[in-house]
């Protein structure tokens, strides 16, 4: 009797307040798709994989061993497998951060605080490198500096000026650092511009009243106050730079310049799973360390929010004779690194033969032509090729489904985390849903490839299905969606929902009538952001696609390797257009930019 009453109460409670049940469901999902994969990988990095017997006589797949860790860290090949790529990755991350941070900071200050003209235009244009795929500038770089010595056709420099650019100019460290540096300028720009405009103006005015000069205020007040924002920018740039794959593949692989991420790719590509696990774990470890180091450096005690007080009108700094140079600098950056690359990529798609810069060489063949056996091995134009159209269809399908699933999960997650704030469940969900953020895309794809390709427990074998891609993208992009969800739910005071409850509204009705309308714009912008992120992702899916599940980015990667440049760049252009449209839709909705 008593148990029945207890059960009844429990059940009623579940119906009335579903967050606990949801929370448990979400934890289960996160365990299966985040914790177990990480654990699986850690364990299997100490086991012989299926290729084990080829390397070690008598090895049995599944047998415990430290062979792979030794091979990667100390073995005879360790230098070329790990240490050199690792140093390359570090060097790239350090140098690109050294470009992106100061540039972004300077631009942010100019736009937020000075009287430089055309602020609206500059702000919009400076964000473009962040919207388009990170390898956009890298590909455009190739059109100028590539050399026939490393396969394919000559670039602009060779074709027009007859200069064969040296390898270090066209490939490897220098161009990788520059293109990634440019891609990450918007991160610092956006974060710092936000910080500079939301600092309470009175904090600076207080110092002014006490007689501080402008430079002293900038150094002693403004700089320390934006330091947390600068720290986030550093972590984002450095951490993400370490794991970048596309640029490093496009600009590094032709001259066999390897980085940690391209090594991970190579290992999984060659079915050397265990070695891939070891490299992946190291990559994750280094990324995680960056985040923690930053938190240590900035310190918990001094962490503060600089809420803007009323009347936080910042007075503009008059640039005087520096106004023209500053404007020119911004203009030049946008011309060279934003408009320029997109223009070059567009131009490339309408040239019958690469490297022949003449009007007679222009054609729309690669867009709408039927196949010509003399051009790109008979591959028809983009809008005529069922192979490419299929990839576009797959990409759109993947992006839309991922975005919707992510959006719904994000809102549920936000609801549970906010309503159960303070409980262990809430904290674990928030922490676990953030974890995929620390795992570079190429590593994430690698893990999912080895875990979910074959049937596993009750889960069927997913290799070659779109489901696998959706699953991978959903889990990887869950951090964006969940932080949007948490933010959206924070905005909604519990009393709004409780008021509806007092009117007898059940949970479903409350969700549809109260929560959903209030969280709508947050939900939509999370969905759109996930959509454009999925559209442009290469590293995450490059290991997982099969001919049936090919996507725009994956065939772009293939075309680029086959030197079907016009097709590759045409697809690139389509991705750019789609992501830009998506981005402006987000802006329309008043959505926040997430990294």
């Amino acid at each position, binding site marked *: 009797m008593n148990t029945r009453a207890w059960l009844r109460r429990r059940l009623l409670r579940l119906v009335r307040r579903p967050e606990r049940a949801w929370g448990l469901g979400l934890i289960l999902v996160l365990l299966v798709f985040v914790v177990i994969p990480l654990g699986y990988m850690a364990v299997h990095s100490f086991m012989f994989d299926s290729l084990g017997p080829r390397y070690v006589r008598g090895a049995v797949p599944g047998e415990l061993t430290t062979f792979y860790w030794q091979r990667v860290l100390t073995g005879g090949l360790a230098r070329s497998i790990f240490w050199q790529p690792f140093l390359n990755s570090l060097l790239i991350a350090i140098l690109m951060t050294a470009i992106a941070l100061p540039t972004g900071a300077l631009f942010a200050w100019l736009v937020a605080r000075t009287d430089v003209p055309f602020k609206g235009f500059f702000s919009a244009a400076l964000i473009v490198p962040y919207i388009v795929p990170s390898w956009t500038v890298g590909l455009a770089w190739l059109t100028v500096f590539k050399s026939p010595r490393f396969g394919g056709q000559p670039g602009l420099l060779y074709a027009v000026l007859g200069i064969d650019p040296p390898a270090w100019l066209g490939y490897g460290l220098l161009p990788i650092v520059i293109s990634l540096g440019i891609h990450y300028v918007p991160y610092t720009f956006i974060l710092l511009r936000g910080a500079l405009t939301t600092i309470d103006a009175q904090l600076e005015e207080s110092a002014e*009243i006490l007689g501080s000069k402008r430079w002293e205020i900038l150094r002693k007040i403004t700089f320390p106050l934006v330091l947390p924002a600068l720290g986030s920018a550093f972590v984002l740039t450095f951490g993400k730079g370490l794991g970048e794959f596309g640029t490093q593949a496009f600009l590094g692989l032709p001259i066999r310049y390897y980085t940690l991420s391209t090594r991970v790719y190579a290992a999984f590509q060659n079915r050397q799973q265990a070695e891939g696990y070891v490299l992946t774990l190291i990559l994750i470890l280094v990324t995680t360390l960056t985040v923690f180091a930053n938190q240590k450096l900035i310190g918990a005690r001094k962490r503060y929010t600089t809420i803007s007080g009323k009347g936080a009108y910042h007075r503009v700094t008059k640039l005087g004779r520096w106004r023209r140079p500053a404007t020119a600098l911004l203009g030049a950056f946008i011309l060279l690194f934003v408009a320029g690359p997109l223009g070059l990529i567009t131009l490339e798609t309408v040239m019958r033969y690469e490297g022949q810069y003449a009007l007679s060489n222009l054609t729309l063949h690669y867009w709408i032509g039927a196949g010509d056996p003399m051009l790109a091995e008979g591959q028809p134009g983009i809008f005529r090729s069922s192979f490419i159209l299929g990839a576009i269809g797959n990409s759109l399908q993947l992006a839309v489904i991922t975005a919707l699933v992510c959006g719904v999960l994000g809102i549920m997650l936000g609801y549970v985390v906010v309503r159960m704030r303070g409980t262990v469940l809430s904290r674990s969900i928030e922490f676990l849903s953030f974890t995929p953020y620390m795992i570079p895309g190429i590593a994430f794809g690698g893990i999912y490839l080895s875990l979910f390709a074959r049937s596993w427990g009750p889960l069927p074998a997913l290799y070659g299905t779109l489901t696998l891609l959706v699953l991978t993208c959903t889990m990887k992009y869950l951090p964006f969606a969940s932080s949007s969800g948490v933010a959206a739910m924070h905005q909604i005071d519990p009393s709004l929902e409780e008021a509806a409850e007092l009117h007898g509204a059940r949970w479903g009705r409350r969700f549809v009538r109260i929560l959903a309308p209030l969280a709508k714009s947050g939900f939509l912008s999370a969905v759109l952001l996930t959509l454009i992120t999925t559209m442009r992702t290469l590293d995450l899916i490059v290991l997982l696609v099969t001919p049936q599940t090919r996507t725009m980015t994956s065939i772009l990667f293939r075309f680029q390797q086959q030197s079907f440049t016009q097709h590759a760049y045409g697809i690139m252009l389509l991705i750019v257009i789609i992501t830009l449209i998506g981005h402006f839709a987000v802006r329309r909705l008043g959505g926040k930019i997430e990294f």
Partner: protein
Amino acid sequence: MPIIAIRNMTKRFGQTVAVRELDLEIADGEFVTLLGPSGCGKTTTLRCLSGLEEPDTGEIHFGDRCVFSSARGVVVPPGGRGIGLVFQHYALWPHMTVFQNVAFGLRKKGLTRSEIRTRVRSTLGVLGLDEHEGRYPSELSGGQQQRVALARMIVTQPEILLFDEPLSNLDAKLRMTLRAELKRLHGEIGATTVYVTHDQLEALTLSTRIAVMKDGVVQQMDTPQEVYHFPRNLFVAEFMGNPTANFLPATVTSAGPPPTVALQWNPDVPLVLPSPTPLPESAEVVINVRPEDIGFSVTPQSGYLPATVYATLPTGAECITYGRLTPGGQEVVLKGPEEEHACLGLNQPFWLGLKRGNVFDAREGTLISSFGFSSREEDS
């Protein structure tokens, strides 16, 4: 010579005129409050004084020093004006400890380390913050943050102190305590103070003089008593006093003295105003009486207005009673000791007597005469 003189100062933000042709003189050691509803230009005036904002036209003098003049192109930067300012949200630097916040302004005065330490410590001591010097602002309560802001201001010993609604973020109790502390502080260091608030009680309790502002224009600048009892126009009369005073439209039926008026709502009762000055015959006026200046009787009396009790709101020591004039039904509010009002029940008839008040010109809204005040008060 006044220590602060503002002459014909105007400040625009685009289309809005925040301060319009302002003239203001403040004597050495005064505590002047700029009082007015939100958006009337108080903060802007203060910021112009501090130099954080540059007026469009006008002049500002501190003593015999001109710190701003649009005509002569003089603009002394904020740091050179010898002022201290406390902001509404305190504006404490979150990345510095209490000590560092307070010491900041001393560092450029060419003092040695130990001199700085002594002065910061003694200032913190005065404000009861000795134990908190190592803390960050986020680790302090609102009242403590407020004191740090005060310490940061007075440690450099400025001649002029400026405050922008410094107490508006605190709860009622703390506000009371800090009000007392501010008044003591002003008494002790004697620095000329300009204080911005929208809280009339704060203005009345703290100031030597109050400047009531509306739409960027000073409506009246006088001592608190003067502003409270003899508001120069209807705006000031309405703004001062809580609950809001009574305003009874009337027509002068006999010039006097003493003048007689007929209320618009209740013309049958001729009302004789106890005033030695005559009023223009048949002028349209507004009689303004404070709630505490209305007496009542539960039996009819000559010259008293018949009314019924609408609601009584006891607050402990005193009681606020709302009545409705009969006939007419205009609302009248009166205030008195609670035990006196205890006999009033719902809808009970009672009779109201106007003890003292002011008469305003109905069209212009300006004060034309007062009644019922002892002559000494009226002269002042």
